[in-house]
């Protein structure tokens, strides 16, 4: 469950002026029949190819800036920065390649029973922790129970909640998680309370990491600042809060090739202007990997793309509008499609967002090439005539009041204002437009009386299309009756038995191709036919990479550099 409140950080006022101009230009074109995607100019910065795999030399220290993580101990590692450090220190049962494919980690192979309720992971032999202790099934069980223990205060232990016995253990009424069997040191058998044929993907989350017998309590900061892992890197001294984290290669690493790098240095920067400082540090040669503020994207690209140091990737995430689809005026698919068609995504992306992302035409992002359906959202284009036609048939007549709420402080002010203006101009709606704190936004969205549209963003925790479709659109993810506030993440209260059946079938399918086909069908129904929510633009990430010094430097699923593959040039 990754609901993000921040989007793009502050964008200069000039961009807003730019948008108004673009907006006018676009409006003068509205007589031209729209919908021809090919005729529209490409917007945003295109994705770059992965850097080619090249043989390199061992050695070197890779340096980058990050914001202060919440934790680098797997029991509570959560945001990109904390996970970035934790995944270098720990190797879980499986690992996910940058493109989302699953490869062995501490487990050499894994198998589910027929209904995917019992999973058996066979562990690699001879692997050890950084302190020399062997990694066995008990190490995993110990790690999971440590995170799930009620006193741990872990904010990520819910990733374990599909395991049988988790609830009892977490409530303190059981002494172990009964669903985890570690009697055979070379094999860990997991019984799930909720069968899941993609369960192995979950175990890529750091909370599924093994811990050694000498592990400290989750409240013992001396240990949680210097956790002992089994990953390709080990800590070189404890985490210096607000200062930095230093890693060194773990030479005895046996779960794959040992790393080539001698080490890595994460310099902790203040979160308020981290992106700017990362960029400055890249320019002055201090960092080998950097983000940059949106206002600098164009300049950075012009400077560094010719040098081969520019990385642009569509990442795990989607920006969209949640639609209260059970309440007027948005209670028909036509009304939702009309709103979607009336939004000029290209103009906003080029104007306010300064090309920093790419307009979306689906909910499942292209990160999942096998399930990605470009243009599955037929109404994710700009066509004012069609929008007006559908609006008229749906009773969304000019003057209709539409509530539009967004959260402040996440850099959403400009583009939501542009969306509002487009809806008012193109459909004649009376948009009541409110900015409020993130938690209030979620409360309003989930309230039974919620109407209208809400700014939203989502990123999957596990690399599967299902982690977009099920939490956001399945009936079970409403978690409430129509008179109660939503408890899941399906804030739009979308409910379609046909969709529910398809995603259920997909989750219960062991065959990957079949599963992807079912995901596609489900998305076609929810987004293509019902327009349950309105996709806007994808999550796109940009990095500057010191490719003059390092090779094989790509971005992984968690948007961090692939430290384990980087070589010196």
């Amino acid at each position: 469950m990754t609901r993000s409140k921040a989007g793009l950080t502050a964008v200069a006022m000039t961009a807003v002026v730019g948008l108004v101009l673009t907006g006018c230009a676009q409006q003068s074109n509205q007589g031209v029949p729209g919908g021809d995607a090919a005729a529209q100019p490409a917007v945003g910065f295109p994705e770059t190819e992965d850097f080619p795999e090249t043989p390199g030399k061992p050695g070197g220290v890779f340096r980058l800036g990050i914001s202060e993580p919440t934790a680098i101990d797997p029991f509570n590692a959560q945001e990109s920065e904390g996970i970035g450090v934790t995944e270098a220190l720990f190797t879980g049962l499986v690992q996910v390649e940058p493109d989302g494919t699953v490869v062995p980690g501490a487990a050499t192979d894994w198998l589910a029973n027929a209904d995917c309720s019992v999973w058996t992971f066979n562990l690699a032999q001879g692997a050890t922790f950084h302190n020399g202790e062997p990694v066995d099934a008990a190490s995993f069980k110990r790690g999971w129970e440590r995170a799930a223990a009620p006193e741990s205060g872990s904010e990520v232990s819910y990733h374990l909640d599909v395991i049988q016995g988790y609830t009892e253990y977490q409530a303190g009424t059981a002494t172990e998680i009964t669903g985890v069997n570690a009697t055979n040191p070379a094999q860990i058998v997991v019984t799930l309370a909720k069968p899941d044929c993609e369960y192995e993907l979950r175990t890529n989350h750091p909370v599924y990491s093994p811990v050694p017998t000498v592990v400290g309590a989750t409240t013992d900061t001396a240990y949680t600042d210097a956790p002992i892992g089994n990953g390709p890197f080990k800590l070189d001294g404890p985490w210096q809060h607000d200062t930095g984290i230093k890693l060194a290669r773990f030479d005895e690493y046996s779960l794959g090739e040992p790393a080539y790098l001698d080490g890595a240095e994460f310099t902790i920067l203040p979160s308020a202007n981290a992106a700017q400082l990362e960029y400055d540090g890249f320019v002055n040669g201090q960092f080998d990997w950097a983000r940059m503020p949106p206002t600098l994207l164009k300049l950075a690209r012009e400077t560094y793309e010719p040098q081969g140091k520019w990385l642009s990737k569509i990442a795990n995430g989607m920006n969209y509008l949640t639609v209260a689809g059970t309440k007027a005026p948005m209670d028909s698919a036509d009304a939702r499609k009309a709103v979607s068609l009336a939004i000029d995504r290209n103009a906003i992306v080029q104007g306010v967002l300064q090309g920093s992302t790419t307009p979306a035409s689906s909910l499942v992002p292209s990160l999942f090439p096998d399930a990605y359906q470009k243009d599955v959202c037929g109404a994710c284009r700009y066509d004012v005539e069609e929008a007006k036609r559908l609006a008229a048939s749906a009773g969304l007549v000019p003057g209709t009041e539409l509530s539009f709420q967004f959260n402040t402080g996440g850099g959403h002010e400009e583009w939501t204002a542009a969306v509002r203006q487009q809806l008012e101009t193109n459909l004649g709606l009376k948009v009541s437009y409110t900015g409020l704190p993130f938690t209030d936004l979620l409360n309003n969205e989930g309230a039974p009386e919620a109407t209208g549209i809400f700014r939203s963003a989502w990123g999957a925790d596990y690399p599967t299309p299902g982690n977009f479709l099920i939490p956001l659109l399945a009936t079970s993810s409403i978690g409430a009756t129509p008179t109660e506030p939503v408890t899941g993440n399906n804030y739009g209260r979308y409910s379609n038995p046909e969709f529910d059946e398809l995603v259920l079938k997909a989750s219960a399918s062991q065959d990957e191709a079949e599963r992807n086909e079912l995901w596609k069908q489900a998305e076609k129904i929810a987004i293509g036919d019902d327009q349950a929510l309105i996709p806007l633009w994808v999550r796109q990430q940009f990095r500057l990479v010191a490719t003059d010094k390092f090779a094989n430097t790509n971005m992984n699923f968690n948007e961090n550099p692939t430290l384990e593959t980087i070589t010196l040039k």
Partner: protein
Amino acid sequence: MGKFILRRAAQALLVIIGATLLVFLANFAFGDPFGSTGDRQVPPAIAAANRAAFGLDQPLPLQYLTYMGNLFTGDLGVDYNQNRPVIELLIETVPNTARLALVAIVIDIFIGVTAGIIAAVKRYSFADVLVTVVSTLAIGIPTFVIGFVLVATLSGVGPFPTVPRSFTVEVPWYTEVLLPAFALAIVDAAFVARLMRGSMLEVLRSDYIRTARAKGLSERKVIGKHALRNSMIPVITYIGVSLGGLLGGAIITEGIFQYPGVGYLLFRAIGGNNAPVITAVVIFSVLAIVVLSLIVDILYAYLDPRIRLS
């Protein structure tokens, strides 16, 4: 003299009580200071520990007493991000800020007093005009502009470390402190130069200076011994208050140079809505200013007997 110090100390104590009361009211009387979060949820255990430490379940007057008690025992609560006592963070950063403030003040005094004396003694000369023009310019430029220009032009050049830099790059403190100290000192030095020039001119017109000159004292002695001491009074007041402000942390400058002082700590804490740290740093800043003003007043009295006798 003893009586005077006692009286001023009592006044300072009142100011401290008033100031902490204000900070307390601002932070505690309206809502829950530990409920607000930045991007992150405050771990419930830490929020609870903070609430308990600050006695938030008690009525307001009792809360204030708890809070004052905590202040005296150095218990400033626990930082959200790092789960460390805030006092530790202060202990780590205060020496750095003190170093920065002192270096800045030394640069400040050196440039400001020298320029002021030259301008006053050689009134209407080219040097005087130059001092006036340059100081006007310096006062006009915001410190952050000077900071950014220094970072852009000098950081990474010669002995000056790059900004930002990887945390493992160790630099001697005196190379790290120079640029931010210089950025802080420029505006102050301009003020000091103008103050110094004005008060020196006034003193030079007074009778006792004429007497001194009539006695046949060298001009060097007249200026350096007789005039300087009296004309320093307004300058010392200014420098004292300015030092107090710098000790409380120069948020913007320390932020620009990523200088690990109190100001940078506050800069980060505000970015993360880290209420316990913000509260502690603000109180520290108030204390720094109050204590420094007290010291200035005492010095003042030492320099000018009329003050302590009145």
